[in-house]
């Protein structure tokens, strides 16, 4: 039992990311409103970004910007243990950009659909499609 608790505590960031991802995924599949689905899609994407950022965290390390980069104290020895892993941050910058790009395209599509059917509810749209 203590093992389980310590595991839950030790990796709580991972549990939060899984929770958020499940929320987002459920919303994308089960919600009826198109914009709500897009909100779910964004929550889903941010959850994955949270996961990547959690990979990069390192105990006892600081942000990945070198101190005294230039100037008289430059070229002192840099120890890898002092700085957080920068690679996941780089990847996630890209992922955030992809997220906002997808959001823009999805909203543009939603507006097109609204112009055609005058509603954003999926069941009402499908009813209109069936009538035609």
């Amino acid at each position, binding site marked *: 039992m203590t093992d389980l608790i310590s595991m839950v505590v030790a990796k709580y960031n991972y549990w939060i990311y899984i929770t958020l991802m499940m929320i987002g995924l459920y919303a994308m599949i089960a919600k009826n409103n198109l914009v709500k689905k897009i909100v779910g899609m964004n929550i889903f994407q941010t959850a994955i970004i949270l996961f990547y950022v959690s990979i990069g965290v390192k105990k006892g390390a600081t942000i990945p910007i070198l101190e005294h980069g230039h100037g008289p104290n430059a070229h002192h020895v840099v120890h890898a243990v002092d700085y957080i892993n920068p690679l996941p941050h780089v990847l996630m910058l890209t992922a955030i950009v992809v997220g906002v790009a*997808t959001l823009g395209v999805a909203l543009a599509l939603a507006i097109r659909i609204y112009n055609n059917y005058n509603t954003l509810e999926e069941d009402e749209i499908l009813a209109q499609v069936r009538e035609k």
Partner: protein
Amino acid sequence: MSEQYPALLVIVPLLSALVVSVAGWVNKRWCFPIAVAALSVSAWSSVGLLFRVLNEGVIVYKLGGWSPPMGIAYYIDYLNGLVLPVVSIVALLNLISSKRTVEQQFPDKTGPFYTLYVLMVTGLLGIVVTGDAFNLYVLLEIASLTGYGLLAMGEERAPLATLNYLYMGTIGACFYLLGIGYLYIVTGSLNMVDIARLLPPLYQSKAVLAAFIICMVGVWLKMAFFPLHAWLPNAYTFANSASSSLIAPLVTKVMVYVMIRLMLTIFTPKFVFNTLAVHDAVVWLAVIAIAMGAVLALKERNLKKMLTYIVVAEVGYMVGGAWLGNRAGLTGAVLHIVNDALMTLCVFLVVGNIVYKIKGYAFGDLKGLFAKMPFTMGAFVIGALSIIGVPPTCGFFSKWYLILGAIQAHQYGFMVALLFSSLINVVLFFRVFEIGFYEPFSDHEGHEHHPAVMAEAPLTMLVPLYVVAISLILVGLYTGDIVNHIVQFVIPKGFM
């Protein structure tokens, strides 16, 4: 210059997409020639690369001068050496063929259309050429985003179908990204070859297992493998014909390539077929995919939608072939990537020509079409025979290898599914021939014209169509050479 081919392959279309976009604001007439020139350069470099791979073996190109795994590198081996020319040539032929359609459908927006078109080809070529798992994700998103834009311009229902595709595509891409994250957390690397080197001690890890499952589900979503295919038929049917004849031949095939790359390079066959040993289940899934695709196609009364279900069935062929886990099956799957891209292009170009002239693609619109558009329908017959799998067209040979692989692996269910789907294809296409050949042509008011006046598509649409149709036969005739010189080097050691 030839040592820079890997860079030129992707960079030239990218730069010219930007130039096309500016040209769209200045003078629309420049867009098309620039796009054609760019894709010709890509096609040229991809063919050049294939010959370099044949002579020298695997090519590594370091981007930014950083050696992998620090930086990003391109790896061109026999597998993507074969797929690259297919992607670039299919895109080029479709671009030339669809000039008239684009001018007809988007007179004001040719600039953005060609920009998106060239960007999409850039994304697809990048996916095929890259050796970095995360870079693949970024390029996947380029190909998908531009694809959503292209597909959504069409009939009234196109935006809704595309939005569904967008949801599914985003879930798929995010799953892939998550899987790569799982691999990164246990190995610390993003380079495909490097991950493969670091993975063997970790084969028993639950994280690696989960990474494999998540990546596979993501890729299957993107390639519309049954039961994740629901988005595909509507998205492709309601789109404009220039876009659907680009996307239908290429996107699913490129995703099959990604799946084979994941199986062979990142996770290695040892993990996929020995440690996991779920290939029987996947092959059965492919059997269901083929059967369902064929049956659903039978139900359709609409040429374009029928073809989209055939695309779903063909995805089942390739996934099943790759998961048979033997030499003949994998050969068949790789060959089928090439053949199916050409076959699908052929039939979708025909649909494009029909839509251009008749403005419809339901079975009722096809009456008397053999008299009205004899050359277009002639090419359709060649494409249809190839999809059915009649020798000497190329479709026969890949199907032959797939059936051979199924027998060797004792997967008789897969063999039966292949034969069943060929039979259904015969029914499907001969029904279309019958309508086109025997029923008299009638226009939309129902007035019968007898005899029908010939109204063939313009020459710019017919020439690319015939290039494709003839290449179907040529690829079929030279199948032996392709297998002996290229495909057999794709097969990993230890495959029987």
